[in-house]
């Protein structure tokens, strides 16, 4: 561990940036605690609060369970078995990640509702029953699990691919086999990845306002929104948001503990753990099973949207502006992802080079920033809007500017994205940093490498994949992000997500199909990139590539 004046400044800088980013959250807590009216809260507690908390809990638990089940088993099959079509399925399984929750909600609502094509066709054949309502809690759980499982799948796959044969052999030498090997050795090795993926699913579910709003679910987030707008009780709404924050903080602590125990240093030489070969029959069964989440989470909803699109005369004005919408989406995505990953990397490094109190503070700040991911997007947008607008007014008064700078600027949007998606980048990067033993740095330094040399020749070869994965994950998230983009965006700056939401809100689902498909397709690019990365790591491993070049 190398400490010095440089690292102190680095820690200070990170804490400063983190503090600035955390200001809106702090303001949120303070405003809530100082301003709420007990009467409003009591009224809410008597009427909707318990129900909505329960709904959110069920939604989160159900989605998490579903995503863990699909994601872990898919990752296990793809990484542990060799079968025909494995490489295809490996990337097909990532596709649902490109599907925003609100888009899959639109698609399935159209397809499955009582008056939709499926039930109409069934009734045409004389069927008299009715399918369960898709716009319901169980419908939402199913859809969330289907589009969120790739978080678990991706992280679990990476973790599985990193397990070295040496470890397995050591396990076998010690007498472990079969299920013991899996539960005592493999599971602890991939547990941090599962927990990290599960956290993402959990937070994404709790924070969702797109699909849940469209389904009219009385979730906790919906109650916050209603308290703010319909009842006009801003402080009470903020207090509810704080309660949500505390719940997430509790989950986070549990995650920390899990990861703290599971912290381990990677082995120095990576030998791939060979996959089990499958008979053609086994291959067929595996492919069929693995295709189910791909079909349900991606192909069917996309096909339904395409079908809607093809039957809708495309307005020429829509096509003309289509290019702009996509461009705006991409600009925000690229800037948002780069800023978020840069900050997470900075934090990870500052933490690596510090110890004691500064290190603890960095960890706490990082954890606090991660909460942003679990706050409903609308609340975070509002939490940012107010302080930023205050700053705007102050600056304009102070310097006598005619125009304001911050609200309605891309800068404010990037700020929102960093705060909202820090967790996505932080989890993976911090974990990857933790896998590199400190002794590695010491060894490199003692061989005369400069700090830059250590970063460039020792850390980067191990870090670039987690960095790229984090960057792509944030990119996809920004492309799908809705509430903050809506509320903070500049004039004449519509994105694909914004347009899709507006058309759907205007009950023009068929016209919303074009931008919805576009979000999915634009989101596919980073998803394919993600897959390339993971595949390359697999190939690299199977070629016996050294963990880092000399």
């Amino acid at each position, binding site marked *: 561990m190398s400490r010095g004046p440089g690292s102190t400044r680095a820690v200070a800088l990170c804490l400063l940036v983190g503090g600035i980013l955390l200001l809106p959250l702090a303001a949120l807590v303070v405003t809530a605690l100082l301003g709420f009216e007990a009467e409003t809260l009591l009224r809410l507690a008597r009427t909707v609060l318990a129900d909505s908390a329960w709904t959110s809990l069920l939604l989160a638990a159900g989605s998490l369970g579903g995503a863990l089940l699909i994601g872990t088993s898919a990752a296990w099959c793809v990484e542990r078995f060799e079968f025909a079509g494995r490489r295809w399925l490996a990337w097909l399984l990532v596709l649902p990640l490109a599907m925003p929750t609100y888009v899959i909600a639109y698609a399935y609502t159209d397809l499955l509702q009582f008056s939709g094509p499926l039930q109409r066709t069934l009734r045409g054949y004389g069927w008299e029953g009715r399918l369960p309502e898709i716009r319901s809690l169980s419908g939402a759980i199913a859809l969330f699990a289907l589009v969120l499982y790739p978080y678990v799948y991706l992280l679990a796959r990476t973790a599985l691919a990193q397990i070295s044969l040496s470890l397995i052999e050591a396990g076998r030498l010690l007498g472990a086999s079969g299920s013991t090997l899996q539960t005592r050795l493999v599971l602890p090795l991939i547990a941090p990845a599962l927990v990290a993926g599960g956290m993402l699913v959990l937070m994404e579910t709790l924070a969702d306002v797109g699909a849940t709003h469209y389904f009219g679910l009385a979730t906790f987030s919906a109650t916050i929104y209603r308290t703010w707008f319909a009842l006009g009780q801003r402080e009470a709404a903020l207090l509810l948001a704080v309660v949500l924050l505390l719940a997430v903080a509790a989950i986070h602590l549990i995650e920390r503990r899990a990861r703290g125990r599971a912290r381990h240093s990677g082995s120095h030489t990576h030998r791939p753990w060979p996959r089990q070969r499958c008979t053609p029959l086994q291959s067929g069964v595996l492919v069929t099973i693995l295709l189910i989440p791909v079909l349900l989470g991606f192909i069917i909803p996309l096909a339904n949207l395409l079908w809607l699109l093809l039957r809708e005369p495309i307005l020429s004005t829509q096509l003309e502006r289509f290019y702009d919408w996509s461009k705006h989406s991409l600009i925000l995505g690229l800037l948002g992802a780069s800023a978020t990953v840069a900050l997470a990397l900075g934090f990870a490094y500052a933490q690596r080079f510090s110890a004691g109190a500064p290190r603890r503070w960095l960890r706490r700040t990082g954890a606090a920033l991660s909460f942003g991911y679990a706050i409903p997007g609308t609340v975070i947008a509002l939490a940012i809007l107010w302080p930023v607008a205050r700053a705007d007014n102050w600056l304009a008064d102070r310097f006598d500017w005619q125009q304001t700078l911050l609200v309605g600027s891309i800068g404010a949007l990037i700020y929102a994205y960093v705060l909202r998606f820090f967790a996505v980048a932080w989890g993976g990067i911090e974990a990857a940093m933790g896998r590199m033993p400190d002794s590695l740095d010491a060894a490199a330094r003692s061989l005369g490498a400069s*700090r830059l040399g250590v970063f460039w020749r020792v850390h980067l070869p191990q870090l670039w994949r987690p960095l790229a994965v984090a960057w792509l994950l944030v990119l996809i998230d920004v492309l799908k992000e809705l509430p903050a983009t*809506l509320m903070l965006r500049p004039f004449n700056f519509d994105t694909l997500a914004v347009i899709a939401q507006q058309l759907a809100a205007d*009950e023009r689902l068929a016209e919303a199909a074009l931008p919805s498909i576009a979000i999915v397709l634009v989101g596919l690019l980073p998803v394919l990139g993600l897959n390339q990365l993971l595949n390359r790591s697999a190939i690299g491993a199977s070629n016996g590539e050294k963990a880092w070049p000399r």
Partner: protein
Amino acid sequence: MRIILNCEFFSIELISRASLNALHAMSRILLALLFTLPTLLPAQTLNLYSARHYQSDEALYADFTKTTGIKINRLELGDDALLERLRAEGKRSPADAVLLVDATRLWRAQQEGLFSPVDSATLRERIPATMRADDGSWYGFSTRARVIIYDPAKVKREQVDTYLKLADPVNEGRLCTRSGSHPYNLSLFASVLERLGAERTKAWLSGMVKNMARAPVGGDTDQIRAVASGECQVAISNSYYWVRLNLSDKPEDREVVSKVAMLWPDQDGHGVHVNLSGGAVAANAPNRESAVRFLEYLASDQAQRYFTAGNNEWPVVDGVDHGNPALTALGEHKVDPLPLAKIASRSPQAQQLLDEVGYR
């Protein structure tokens, strides 16, 4: 020349001073791009915050720019988010004109002082008094009626031809609505509340809840489709959703239209409830003049026709020949003359009644 910047924990080696300069220049351009977008506006502009998201409005705005030379910068947001942004931005808000789609929200924003009253003879003369704020804080520009959709094969017209009859026991298990808290419903309920008082309105709302075929879900179009598919037999909808289905040439929409009927409620009573989409000048409008011109333009015959052609709403200005055959086909009807400002002031209480009777 080779310089080394020992910058915090990263040592960044830069090959030459030239590249350092280039980096500086690039970061400046980037910063400028990031933070000055809103300031790069030409002189004659109108900053419009709109809660209307109808694609057809673009023609309306383009026409305004052509007529007046004023360029429109648009920010489209849901009503709630739009007002919140206006509140937060406070006195430095760039917003000039604001368009909202519900009288209640216009009224609330007026109460909060987010609008600045406009004293315009043109607007006073053209917009009927029931369709604007007394002090000129906001003006309605188009109306949408809250009509009743029913299944003529299963329901007799006279069982559902007033709003109050929707709560009759005869309609048990027949009713579909969207969420009661949605402004389109809330405004209707507030108008009933204004007439009947809290007690009778509460009984009426609770009767409707009893009559529901399923819990409120979806939008107005979904309710119409639900009637056509047999999920329920009566629904409430904004008129333009019905017209939109009528004009569609998709077979499944034709099928919906063929199976359901629309009626004008309360034609022997007070008349059908209408809500409006309206506009106002923001309290701190930097380009107030442009904003007033914009509102006056919206009251012009031409703009009024855009509203009706684009989204099948009715013009508010008397005597404008809307020339929309789809609207003419709906027939003559009597409109509830209750001032919308008055209805709007009742909506918070209406929301409380909804919570009390469990109308989601």
